[in-house]
């Protein structure tokens, strides 16, 4: 097993890829907060879990390239008369939550790397 596809790192990488793609999508929703007829889109957690399972199963055979998740419509609680269903507050909350999850994964990634580094260091140094 190479260091590159150790299961922990693979999971965390997948998580970061997911959240960074979701951030992209949420930014697009916010940019279109006043576009008539626009429906906000989001990624589904279920897709992420499925991808994660796949990743774990295939981690022995080698790393899979970055995956693109399918975006689906997820209208917010209100729709304006011009057919726009972006509620700025809800999108901001989602974006904040998403960032938090991304940073959690990133911190864990950093820690795992630190652990490996520690294990690789010669004794007594």
């Amino acid at each position, binding site marked *: 097993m190479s260091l590159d596809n150790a299961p922990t790192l693979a999971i965390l990488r997948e998580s*970061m*890829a997911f959240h*960074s*793609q979701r*951030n*992209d999508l*949420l*930014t*697009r929703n*916010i*940019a*279109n*907060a*006043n*576009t*008539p007829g*626009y429906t906000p889109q989001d990624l589904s957690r279920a897709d992420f879990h499925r991808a994660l399972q796949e990743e774990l199963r295939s981690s022995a055979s080698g790393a899979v390239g970055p995956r693109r998740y399918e975006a689906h419509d997820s209208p917010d609680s209100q729709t304006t008369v011009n057919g726009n269903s972006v509620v*700025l507050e809800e*999108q*901001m909350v989602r*974006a*904040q939550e998403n*960032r938090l999850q*991304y*940073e959690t994964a*990133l911190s864990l*990634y*950093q820690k795992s*790397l*630190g652990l490996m580094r520690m294990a690789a260091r010669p004794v007594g140094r």
Partner: protein
Amino acid sequence: MSDASDALAVAAAGLRAQSARMRIIAENIANANSTAETPGGDPYRRQMPVFEAELDRATGLETVRMSRATPDMSEFRLEYEPGHPAANEDGYVRYPNVQTLVELMDMREAQRSYEANLNMVESSRRMMERALDLLRR
């Protein structure tokens, strides 16, 4: 990594669209009392910004832009001022259909959306920065 810079590009398009909208609102407010130059002529007509989702062909991103400004076809305000140079034969002057209060509310909304986009820029930037921190240690 490209995702985060994509987010920056989309948020930048959002900022651009909102500031274009602010410009239209400023034009409306500035012209709230611009009457015609000839007697009985039409005064300034209120403009309304129209946003549309746009596919940026160079990057393949779906961004936003202000596609055009459409004129507001509602009635002009009539006021009786016989001495005014733009008054018609009955002494009425047609004033623009701009309502300053509506424009102000619109401006607030534009401001709020602008700030939301700015927040996304900041947030995406920080995400990128944290990822780059991996290199540092």
